[in-house]
């Protein structure tokens, strides 16, 4: 081996080693959306601990206000993986891949709830016409798409059906807006409402579920398809799918009121896709 070739090999090894060191020093950035109770510090701490257990690296939980910001960060590589909603996943289906889907109450599905104040006489969506309605996020399935598409089926849009709509950028905020009387009705994630009913019963007691949607695919964990081969992403997927196998994972699942995370196919979100298609046709 010539000195020049040896020097090249050594330099290559050193650079590679340096890259590994740099790589190891960069935390794994996991993005969260208001899909769950992101205001609970204990939940955040448990989730970070559980992810760090399997990824063997520092985990940074990234919180943004909207799905759009999270999706943008995921697509531009600012974050490595995200727990997002089925609706934005389907919007960028060609770029994103499901790492796993949470199982809640025995199945990887949830419902969208249409809620109103506890003493509101409305019995269905039609009865809520003319009031102020609180949505969670324009890119949320349960917090927007379901109600918007239901209105579409009625030949209405949120702007024509309701006196005013507001976006609260959080399912918990939707419950707060309705419970506090700011809005007459709201579209909320059924999983979040049920979890709140256990954690903050005084809050949900001031609301009432007027209507429930069909069962739809639970908000998935996703990553960019072209980065699936990266060790961190793979470790993240393995960690999510094996949360029940270590105490930190079980604690995170307990706090999140989830059974486990299981592999999922895009077909799980066909119901959401159908509603998207309906909305697309209306446009």
């Amino acid at each position, binding site marked *: 081996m010539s000195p020049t070739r040896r020097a090249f090999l050594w330099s290559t090894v050193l650079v590679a080693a340096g890259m590994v060191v740099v790589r190891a020093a960069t935390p794994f950035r996991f993005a969260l959306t208001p899909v769950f109770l992101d205001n609970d510090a204990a939940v955040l701490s448990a989730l970070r601990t559980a992810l760090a257990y399997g990824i063997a690296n520092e985990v940074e939980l990234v919180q943004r206000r909207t799905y759009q910001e999270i999706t943008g960060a995921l697509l531009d590589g600012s974050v490595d993986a995200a727990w997002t909603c089925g609706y934005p996943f389907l919007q960028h289906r060609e770029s994103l891949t499901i790492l796993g889907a949470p199982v809640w109450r025995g199945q990887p599905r949830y419902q969208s709830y249409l809620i109103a104040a506890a003493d509101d006489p409305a019995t269905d969506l039609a009865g809520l016409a003319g009031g102020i309605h609180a949505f969670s996020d324009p890119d949320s399935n349960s917090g927007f798409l379901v109600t918007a598409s239901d209105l579409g089926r009625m030949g209405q849009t949120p702007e024509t059906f309701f006196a005013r709509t507001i976006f609260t950028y959080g399912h918990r*905020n939707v419950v707060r807006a309705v419970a506090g009387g700011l809005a007459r009705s709201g579209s909320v994630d059924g999983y979040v409402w049920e979890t709140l009913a256990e954690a903050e019963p005084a809050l949900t007691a001031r609301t009432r579920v007027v209507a429930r949607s069909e069962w739809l695919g639970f908000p998935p964990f996703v990553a960019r398809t072209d980065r699936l081969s990266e060790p961190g992403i793979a470790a993240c997927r393995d960690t999510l799918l094996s949360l029940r196998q270590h105490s930190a994972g079980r604690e995170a699942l307990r706090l999140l009121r989830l059974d486990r995370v299981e592999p999922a196919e895009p077909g799980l979100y066909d119901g959401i896709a159908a509603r998207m298609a309906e909305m697309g046709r209306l446009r």
Partner: protein
Amino acid sequence: MRVGWFQNLSVSVRVPLVVAGLMVALGLVASQGVLAVLGNLQDARLREITRLHVEGLSVALGPFVPRQDVWEVYDVLDRAQQAGDGQRLLLTVVADGQGRVLAATDPHRAPVGSNIAPFLLEAAAPGDVRMTGDPVLRVAAPLMYQGRDVGRIVTELDVADLLAERRRVAYWLLFGNAAATALLGLAGWLVVARLLRPVGVLVQAMGGETGVPHAIPESRMPRGDPGLMRLFSTYNAMAAAAEARAEAERRLAARERFVSLGRLSSSLAHEINNPLGGLMNAADTILSYPDRPEVVRQSAGLIQRGLAHLRDVSRAILDQNRLDRTDQPLRPEDFEDLRLLFGPEAAARGQTLEWRTLADAEALGHHPAAPVRQVVLNLLLNAGGAAGQSGHVALEVCSDAQGLHLQVCDSGPGMAADDLARLMTSGPLPPGGGVGLRLVHDLVERLGGSIRHDRTPDRTVISVSLPAGRGADA
């Protein structure tokens, strides 16, 4: 007057009462001052709370109000309500530049999109807010963002706790001051009452129930206080002098009855001597002509008439001086007696005596005989003396529903000032002169009557009115 009862209290009671009253007034003024300071502190605290609240909200809401971000405005208000002094902030309403409500802590009261105008009514600026007695105060302020007025904030403050604190302090002040005032008032009372005890003794000695000053007994003399001791000794000396003088006046008055008769003695002696001469002549005639029955009978008749006159004169003198007649009712005969006593005096001076008694026996019977006789006799003697030789003296007695009226006139030159003072006033007796007119004054006063003096160019008229209904035992 209403304060009469207070003035009737003794000095030793009045002064401590005034001291206690002043302490109560002082307590009230002090309490009012404390409450005013508390009110100012509470107002300042309220203004500070309001200012911080409005400024804090302006900073937090500034970016959201121009964007009409209903949720963010509500979120800020809701979280502000939960935190800090949220219990004081009953309601906060935020409106945009057009006065439309963006959000409120209680959207039921101020729905999104409604007009904020009703909430601006009776709302004060943060710098002007103050306690008004209303448990809920409303404050309105412009919402400033980047130097622009972008909306309005209205806040309702619950100040019931501050009002309750004020009430509590007022009650405690009232209770504390009442207790302190009562304690100090009692202490002041005791101290001042002790200090004024000698004055009370003096006041009691000076007037008492009888109105007659009397000496302070030796046992009640303030031996520990030389100044007061001197005062008491001086008072005792004055009281003794006054007592001696009163005693002298009493004796003079008692003697006056004899004095008045004494003044009549020469005329009365003449009145007795005249019939005595006739009687002696009649006796001589009987002795000279015992065998002439018609002469004896005529002389005996003369003797009988003379003796009857003497009997009347002596009875009048006795009646004037008999002490056991003091309670007898006045009769017409009493005026006949007076005429009998005074008539010779007037005759001796060649005076004409006009005598009119118009009051009947029943009207006279309501008045006591002795003092009225003394009054009339003294006035007649005074009038007779003033009228002089060949003068005119008149007495008129009449009665009506008001009582008995006696009027004595004379044609004299009028009463001297000293005599008038004796008759009309209760002041010290002027030196010299008798006490007859003063006796008239005292008797009439004791009978509840009044005296009037009138002077015409040629007549002096003394009118005495005695009220009916005093009875003979007055």
